[in-house]
């Protein structure tokens, strides 16, 4: 068992790659590539499930588990020590469930592409699997160059597939997507190289100590932190940097649209921006909170007026991802837990909704909402699942979207400011409006000419086999969040303590502000789990009242 634990992450990284090679080697006969891709993605999903099953929650457990750390490329060496790039991967509470989510969405993506991809299946599924490896790599890497490698690699299959299978003008959208993410990565690489030149290390934990120790020049560190943030903010995207989203969603094959936005950037913010540069992150947090709230409202308003459902989903994603950004840069423990939870929920719900919209697009070949109508009677299964997914997305209690939204808004309300929380809540209400209106226009009302023109083709068995578990998961995540939150909170604790320690250094004699007070309060509560126990929250609130005064 120990041997498996020591190599499981390598297996997870290599399995999709091996599948991709197999797809390329086998002849392109019928749906053979589809089956290989499905088998590979299911096997990989099985491997990722090993992680939560054997993740230790004990108090003395190391922060990163299943860790592999060995020198891969030696860049320079002297008699004392050698520096270089390490193959350093590991999982903590923050990345654990995200890895599982990537594993889960892979078979969903394969099923969603089952009929949508008619030509060059080999190329499609091989690149799809390479994309999986790249995404796993981003979540697992603890060496900055390794991380950067996977981060950039994740762009390539995506760009090629958008160009190959774009609906209208694929190459244009692909180029836009690629450049929007690639150019901001340039300052990121400069920042990483600068850190290496100063510290001789690309290792996450080592750099963390270096930065907290305060020996690096503060002015330059500012720019470095900003370079990190900029690259991540474009990828998420944060409000004024979202230019690529709508077109990419419009053109990307369904299987890739599910994974294109959000997760990678949001995770990177938590791990590599706040995790590495707590003091600098604190300084820019108010700006980001403001931008996030603007993004929530802006995305929701634009989603309301879209006539094309891919574009609607793109702006809905902008709105939801901005909410998660709000949770992250509120810098509260509750907000962070909510953010990670919401990433998971958003991934599951979006996966289901994209699968359904993709099925609609396949049978009616239009994404104009106005052309649809009255489908509920003809496609009862599609309609039911879509309504269920929409309810989960808008945050109906007992479904997955609620928990994350509630935690984020709670964290914002108690830890940041009531005004921002109220404004963000407005966005949630708008979210309900555009989603329910979309449901109404697609599935209810009088039957449209388009719906009448084609024989009804409801979900196939394969799609049902994917949607049932996703729906069950939405329900489970809504009623038993502790299954996930207990692990997540072990991951979001560490940045908290570092914030405090760096704060001590930075602030010195300054009175502890609301953040320190809040975390101290959380620590003093016997049970730090955000289990909504009235006592803890109430005392936290009162604490904030005091601090505010």
């Amino acid at each position, binding site marked *: 068992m120990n041997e498996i634990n020591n190599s499981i992450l390598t297996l997870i990284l290599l399995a999709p790659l091996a599948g991709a090679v197999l797809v390329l080697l086998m002849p392109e006969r019928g749906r053979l590539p589809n089956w290989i891709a499905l088998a590979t993605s299911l096997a990989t999903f099985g491997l990722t499930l090993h992680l939560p099953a054997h993740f230790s929650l004990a108090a003395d457990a190391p922060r990163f588990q299943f860790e592999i750390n060995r020198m*891969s490329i*030696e860049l*320079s060496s002297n008699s004392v020590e050698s520096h270089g790039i390490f193959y350093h991967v590991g999982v903590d509470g923050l990345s654990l469930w995200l890895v599982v989510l990537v594993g889960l969405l892979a078979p969903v993506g394969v099923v969603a592409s089952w009929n949508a991809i008619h030509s060059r299946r080999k190329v499609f599924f091989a690149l799809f699997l390479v994309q999986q490896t790249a995404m796993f790599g981003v979540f697992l890497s603890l060496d900055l160059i390794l991380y950067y490698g996977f981060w*950039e690699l994740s762009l390539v299959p995506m760009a*090629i597939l958008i160009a*190959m299978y774009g609906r209208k003008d694929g*190459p244009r959208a692909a180029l836009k997507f690629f*450049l929007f993410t690639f150019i901001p990565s340039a300052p990121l690489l*400069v920042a990483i190289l600068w850190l290496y030149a100063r510290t001789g290390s690309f290792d996450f934990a080592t750099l963390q100590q270096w930065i907290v120790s305060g020996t690096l020049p503060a002015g330059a560190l500012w720019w470095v932190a900003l370079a990190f943030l900029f690259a991540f903010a474009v990828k998420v995207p944060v409000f004024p940097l979202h230019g690529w989203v709508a077109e990419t969603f419009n053109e990307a094959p369904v299987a890739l649209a599910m994974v294109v936005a959000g997760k990678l950037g949001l995770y990177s913010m938590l791990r590599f921006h706040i995790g590495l540069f707590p003091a600098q992150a604190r300084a820019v947090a108010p700006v980001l909170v403001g931008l996030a709230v603007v993004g929530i409202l802006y995305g929701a308003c634009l989603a309301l007026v879209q006539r094309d459902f891919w574009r609607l989903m793109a702006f809905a994603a902008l709105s939801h991802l901005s909410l998660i950004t709000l949770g992250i840069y509120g810098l509260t423990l509750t907000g962070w837990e909510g953010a990670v939870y919401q990433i998971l929920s958003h991934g599951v719900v979006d996966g289901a909704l994209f699968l359904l919209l993709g099925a609609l697009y396949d049978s009616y070949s239009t994404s104009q909402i106005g052309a649809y109508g009255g489908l509920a009677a003809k496609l009862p299964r599609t309609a039911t699942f879509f309504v269920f997914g929409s309810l989960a997305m808008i945050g109906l209690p007992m479904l997955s979207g609620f928990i994350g939204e509630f935690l984020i808004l709670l964290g914002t309300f108690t830890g940041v400011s009531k005004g921002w929380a109220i404004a963000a809540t407005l966005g949630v209400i708008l979210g309900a409006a555009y989603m329910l209106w979309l449901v109404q226009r697609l599935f209810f009302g009088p039957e449209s000419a388009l719906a009448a023109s084609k024989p009804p083709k409801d979900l196939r068995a394969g799609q049902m086999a994917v949607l049932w578990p996703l729906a069950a998961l939405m329900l489970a995540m809504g009623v038993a969040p502790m299954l996930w939150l207990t692990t997540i909170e072990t991951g979001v604790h560490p940045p908290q303590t570092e914030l405090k320690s760096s704060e001590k250094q930075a602030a010195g004699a300054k009175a502890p502000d609301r953040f320190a007070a809040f975390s101290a309060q959380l620590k003093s509560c016997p049970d730090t789990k955000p289990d909504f126990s009235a006592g803890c929250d109430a005392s936290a609130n009162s604490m904030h009242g005091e601090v505010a005064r």
Partner: protein
Amino acid sequence: MNPDILRILPEVILTLTGVTIMLLDASLPLGWPRWPLGGVGAIGTTLALWASLWQLSLPEGTGFYATIETSAFTVFFHVLICGIVLVALLLSLDTLPEESHHQGEFYALIVFGAVGMCLLTGAVELLLVFIALEISSIATYVLAGYRKETARGPEAAIKYFLLGSFATAFLLYGIALIFGATGTTGIYEIARLAPGAENHSLVLAGMGLMLVGILFKVSAAPFHVWTPDVYEGAPSPVVALMSTAPKAAAFALLLRVVYEMLPSLRPVWEPLLWVVAVLSMTVGNLAALRQQNVKRMLGYSSIAHAGYLLAAFAGLGPSGIAAASFYTAAYAAMNVGIFAVITVAGGYDEKLPLIDDFRGLVHRSPLLGCLLIFFLASLVGIPFTGGFFGKLVSFSAAIGGGANWLVLIGLLNSGLAAAYYLRLALVAAQPSDDQRSAAAAPQVGVAVGAALLLAVAVTLTLGIVPGNVLRAAEAAAHTLQAPPAEGGVPAIALEPR
């Protein structure tokens, strides 16, 4: 055996190969196929490659009255150049038309060019440097105009020849001035004498003129104007060769001149190269953005890559040399690879000159299409390819030398460059509705397949497990730095105290 001969063993093998090819070409009956001559060339080049590797077992030092050196540095570049020449020969084997009457000359010229390039990397005497440069240049001038039947071929050859001889004249004047200042043409001797002469106007002017000549050969801006025209006119396999091998040799010479011959003039040449690096990247990338012709675009891209490589010269001492050497290898692998793909896809008569002609290549020929995208990804600098790791070490060395702004400009430039590389890649990935071109799916022969395989393998190796090559580059860097051990006594010790 005379140990001096062993120090030029690869060059000797290559010369013999070239002569053999010429004699065979003259003695074979007219109707016989000439492609086996290319096979002879490939075998000879492979032997030369092994001979270079074997030279590692020789004691480090110089031969022929201290004119030629064997060291880890020379072996590194010998292996690189022989590898490129081998790929170019394999590429030509399948693509040169059967009816061509000058195949023998073609193969012989490639091999003779390789002699000059190899000699250039080993020369530690400025006159030998000049002769070696001429040997390699004259071969490439002729090769550039190999397609006499087209208008572009002779145009390319004449442009290249006129500008090239002009640049060589600059180099020669520079050598003369430095000889005037120091009274010697031995690189080590000059290195020993130069520290007292930082402000000597002859040394400064000589260095400036030499740099002009060398920077012309690596096609760095503002000495780059010949590049796109020559690339457009020359046959693709020749461009695969001349965009990499002579440049590798010229970069070796540049490293030798600035790091070994005139290290004490660093305050002068470092800002110069800084400016040239920024200019090359920016000019190359901006011009490439607007190109419609694939070979012209890659011509401008090679100018930009010369800029990225020059960024490594901001690195201090061995780290800069190692980074520049590594980048040369990475650039050579991917650039040879992409020209190989273009050669196969377009054929000898270049049926696909424009970017839009590549539309749907992935659908027509998945293998070639994917290889095209792979090499373009490497040129963009996508991780796990040689291009990324080359940029990483180059820029990392520059940051180590404190050139933060240079690196930021360089990386933003590589972001800009992604736009035109991707334009080609995405056009190739786009489905094409043109049935006519679908019929003409290019075939990949055995020799070309081997060439492509070699290029892919090296590009991937340099991107994923570059450790060995990196160590070789570092070893090379250290031999370039160390004082020459001649007669057991370091030359520096001869200086009277």
